C-alpha cells in the first residue's frame, strides 16, 4: 500500500446514516471494546493467582461505580457482538443478504443486546451479585 492521504472507504462523511451501517460500525466498536474487556478478564485471573489481598483490590475496583459502568457497557458489548456475530455467520452462508432481511436482523440483534443485558443485570441485582 502506498503511503497517501486519501479518504478511506466507505467515505463515512458522504453517506446518509442507515441502520445496517450503524450495526456494522457498532460491531467493530464493540469488538474493540471487548478487546479491553478481555484484558480486564485476564487481570481477574492474574489477581486471583496473586492472592487474597490483590484479589480483594480487584473486586473493590470492579465493584466501584466506574467498575460497574464498565461492566455494564461490556455486558452490552458482549451481547451485541454475539448477536451481530451470529448475523455475520448467517450472511457467510449466503443467506439473509437482501436489504429487508438485513434491516430486520439488525433490529433483532440490537433488541437482543438490550434485553439480554437488562435480564443479566436484573439477575445480578436480585441475587445480590452487585
Amino acid at each position, binding site marked *: *500500500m*502506498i*503511503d*497517501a492521504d486519501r479518504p*478511506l472507504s466507505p467515505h463515512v462523511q458522504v453517506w446518509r446514516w442507515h441502520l445496517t451501517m450503524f450495526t456494522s460500525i457498532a460491531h*467493530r466498536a464493540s*469488538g*474493540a471494546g*471487548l*478487546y479491553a474487556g*478481555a*484484558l480486564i*478478564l*485476564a487481570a*481477574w*485471573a*492474574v489477581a*486471583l*493467582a496473586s*492472592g*487474597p489481598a490483590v*484479589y*480483594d483490590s480487584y*473486586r473493590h475496583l470492579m465493584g466501584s461505580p466506574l467498575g460497574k459502568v464498565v461492566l455494564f457497557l461490556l*455486558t452490552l458489548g*458482549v451481547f451485541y457482538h*454475539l448477536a451481530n*456475530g*451470529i448475523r*455475520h*455467520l448467517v450472511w*457467510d452462508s449466503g443467506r439473509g443478504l437482501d436489504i429487508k432481511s438485513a434491516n430486520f436482523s439488525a433490529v433483532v440483534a440490537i433488541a437482543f443486546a438490550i434485553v439480554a443485558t437488562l435480564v*443479566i443485570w436484573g*439477575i*445480578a441485582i436480585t*441475587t*445480590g*451479585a*452487585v
Partner: protein
Amino acid sequence: MASYRTPLGRARGLGAAHHGASHWLAERVSAIALVPLVLWMVFGILRLASLDYQGAVLWVSEPLNAVLMVLLTATAYWHMHAGMRVIVEDYIHKTLTKAVLLVLNMFVSVLVGSLAIFSILKVALGGAL
C-alpha cells in the same frame, strides 16, 4: 505437456502467501466456539461476583470451570487478535505504523493471554491456597 488448467483454476485457494482463506476461516471457527463459551462466561461472572477469594479459588478449581475458562481465554484471545488485525489492516495504510500495530497486537494478545491461562491453571492446580 502444457497445463490445461486456467490461470483462475491455479490461483483458486492460493493467496499471495499460499494461505488462501485460512485467516478468514479461523476467525469464523473461533466465533462459533465463542458462542457457547461466552454464554457460559456470563453466568460464571454472575456466580463469581458474589464469591470472595476462597470461593473464587474453589470455583476455578472445579475441573469443568478450569477447562472452560482456559478454552474461553485461548479462543477469545485468538479471536480478538484476528479482529484487531483486520481493523488495523483496514484503516492503517502507513506501512511502518501498520507493521508496528500488527506486531503490538500480536505481542499483547500472546503475552496477556498466556498470563491469564497460566494464572487460571495455577489457581486450578492448587497454587493459590
